[in-house]
């Protein structure tokens, strides 16, 4: 569904992605792990057309992701994104945040957009926060609204960029719970995360990105339990046994 072929991306003369190949099939959950600064966010942002890339090809359903093309807006409605820092619209309530895309981008009727948004907020456990502004919500609640906002577009895939890293520890669980439920419903997901337990439990496969290259990939169990690459071993040791 999402395919990356030899993707290169530089900021000025700093090459961040040095030829990335990957494929995410429909219904798959893929976790992308790797040290900070290895280019994980950049990779996600390229898939969503928030960054340009210099060479290689990223495609969604066979269609090339090209920031300069007018088709980019359509591709973005099909691949949603959940950000590390939630990025909810602070001047709109929870339900308005969720309705924003369906109502104004997909031009759905007010009543049906609202009804659907309500159902989504119920689904992420926020039925009593429909009219709350983001500033009145906890981090975990905000991130669940953000997931509902992504789902409201009825996307074919969702990209998650460290969705729990900005959360207090006691709120990580509620967000992972929602993501686990999505995985069980076979939502296509590409998840950047340091939650190794979540990856082990939920992911179909794992990609390990280091220095702008995918240095190891395979089924979650294999990569996370018996990593072959020395850098992967090293990284996993550090995230699972923090000093």
């Amino acid at each position, binding site marked *: 569904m999402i395919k990356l072929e030899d993707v290169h991306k530089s900021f000025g003369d700093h090459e961040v992605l040095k030829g990335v190949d990957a494929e995410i099939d429909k219904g798959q959950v893929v976790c992308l792990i790797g040290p900070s600064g290895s280019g994980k966010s950049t990779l996600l*942002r390229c898939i*969503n*057309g*928030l960054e340009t890339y210099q060479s290689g090809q990223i495609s969604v359903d066979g269609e090339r992701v090209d920031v300069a093309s007018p088709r980019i*807006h*359509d591709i*973005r*409605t099909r691949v*949603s*994104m959940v*950000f590390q*820092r939630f*990025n*909810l*619209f*602070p*001047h709109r309530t929870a339900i308005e945040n969720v309705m*924003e*895309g369906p109502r*104004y*981008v*997909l031009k759905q009727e007010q009543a049906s957009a609202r009804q659907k948004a309500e159902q989504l907020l119920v689904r992420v456990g926020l039925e009593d926060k429909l009219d709350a502004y983001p*500033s009145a919500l906890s981090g975990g609640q905000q991130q669940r609204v953000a997931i509902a*906002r*992504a789902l409201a*577009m009825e996307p074919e895939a969702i990209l998650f960029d460290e969705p729990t890293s900005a959360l207090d520890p006691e709120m990580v669980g509620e967000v992972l719970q929602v993501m686990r439920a999505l995985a069980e419903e076979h939502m296509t997901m590409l998840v950047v995360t340091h939650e190794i337990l979540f990856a082990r439990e939920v992911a179909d496969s794992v990609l390990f990105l280091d220095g702008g290259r995918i240095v190891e990939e395979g089924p979650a169990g294999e990569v996370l339990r018996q990593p072959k690459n020395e850098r992967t071993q090293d990284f996993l040791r550090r995230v699972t046994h923090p000093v």
Partner: protein
Amino acid sequence: MTDFIASAGVYLPILLKGVWLTIAVTLLSLGLATLLGLIWALFRTSGIRWLALATRIFVEFVRGVPILVVLFYIYFVMPEFGLDLTAFQAGVVGLALTYSCYIGETFRAGIEAVDKGQVEAAKSIGMKTPMMMRRVVLPQAFRIVVPPYANNMVMLLKDSSQVSVISVAELTMQGKMLASSTFDNMTVFTLVALLYLCLTIPLNFAMRRVEVAMGSAK
């Protein structure tokens, strides 16, 4: 003091005519300056290099020239290019042009102060730039911009006195004419100052109320 009150009774009706013109000049040029300022700000943040640069050069030019010179230029020079404006029109255009550059800069700063994550969130749900600006960026920039905008509004009101140099009979001009015919400088200019204060103090007060209301709404 009784002298002052007696003459004030005579002068006030004349000065009030000037007050109305001051208000008219201020409101018209404020409206035009706001509209133009928004356009300059959108140009400068458009990401289109040449457009941003051209706007920036224009803004720097206008900001670097005294209002008086801008007014003279529009009133006395533009007719040679076929643009013949009345003194009132030239005054409004000159003030609007000058203030559009100040206001535009505060709008630009407001737009740039909106978190980049907001732009990304808007794009990631498929919004195109105009809708993103209208529904996501500008409403948030608006809050940031209110205090400097209010400040510009009061400055504009005071600077509207400058159009007296091209003989628009607003408050300052009426005062000058009255003073030179009565030689009663003290009474006339005290009244003029008080009348300006009657306009600026309520304006300042109202804007502070708006700021407080917006601050608590967030």
